[in-house]
């Protein structure tokens, strides 16, 4: 039995493929069931608390003068914004990864590139923002702009720098862990598919 025989048999037959149970009109507006669509839904749920928190912060700043002048509160808001940006990056990436157009090989290579460069860019930006926050904190300490940091200012500079570095390292591993958790399965599967092209 050859593949050509199967082709001939299918060409000569009237109905080989079982028709769909529902019409296209009923099916096309359904939600996608892919892994990425599932992730997109989860991340969009995760994005909801951020605007709510920003509103709460705004209300606090509007009603409380002390809070408005507290660098600590602004830093908390800063951390929140960085994490929000990080989540937005993942959301945008997942949206792009759902594109199924283009020839198969190109489509898979683009997805792999997006996953690889996505992490590097995302990691660089969030870490840079955290490093910037550490610099701002040091400026605040230098100019004694906020009494809340009095105790931290009394800590030796070297220890402070080590703390910032440790924080950045922890951030790096945490981001790497979550990125892997989100995308490693798809990444491996895409890489194995690319090997099948050889």
């Amino acid at each position, binding site marked *: 039995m050859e593949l050509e025989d199967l082709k001939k*048999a299918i060409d000569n037959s009237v109905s080989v493929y079982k*028709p769909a149970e529902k019409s296209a009109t009923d*099916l096309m507006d*359904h939600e*996608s069931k*892919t892994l990425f669509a599932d992730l997109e839904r989860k991340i969009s749920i995760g994005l909801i608390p951020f605007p709510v928190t920003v509103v709460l912060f705004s209300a606090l700043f509007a009603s409380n003068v002390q809070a408005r002048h507290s660098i600590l509160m602004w830093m908390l808001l800063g951390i929140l914004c960085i994490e929000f940006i990080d989540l937005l990056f993942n959301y945008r990436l997942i949206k792009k990864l759902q594109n199924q157009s283009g020839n*198969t090989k190109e489509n898979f290579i683009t997805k792999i590139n997006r996953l690889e460069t996505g992490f590097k860019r995302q990691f660089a930006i969030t870490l840079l923002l955290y490093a910037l926050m550490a610099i701002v904190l040091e400026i605040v300490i230098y100019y004694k702009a906020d009494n809340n940091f009095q105790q931290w200012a009394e800590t030796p500079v070297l220890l402070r720098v080590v703390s910032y570095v440790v924080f950045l390292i922890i951030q790096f591993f945490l981001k790497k862990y979550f990125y892997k958790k989100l995308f490693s399965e798809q990444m491996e599967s895409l890489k194995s598919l690319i090997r099948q092209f050889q």
Partner: protein
Amino acid sequence: MKELFLQQIQLHEKTILKICHFYTNTDADRQDLYQEILVQLWKSYPRFRGESSFNTWLYQVAINTAITGLKKDKKQIRAYDINRFSKEIAEADFAEHEQLYKAMYTAIEQLNAIEKAIVVLFIDGKTYAEMEKILGINEPTLRVKMNRIKEKLRQLTKNI
């Protein structure tokens, strides 16, 4: 736009069914994949600029979806349904060679995702140039792959 899209889908429905048939093992999986392909086609349709034929574009989206689309757990949980062949072959017009076709389909099941895509395109009568547009594999490589696939299928079905 929706009307035009549905008209095109109606014309090419057999292509989608064919892809679903080769990439799934059970009826339920086939219905899921069919739905997913339609969802992806509809989502991608605004980006279809007519640079290639609708059929080529449809093949690209449908094959990409079939290969990477569905969630892994769904593929693994459902059991392989060997009886589907008898049913479908009986519905088709080549029931007299049932055993042979069953064996051929079972052999195709064992091919990897890209090889299956080549088989689907071959069965649909696509030329190597068209296959290259859809899969992004150049013609000489496709010819080598096709020969290897045929040999593999020959080996897998030789005892029948």
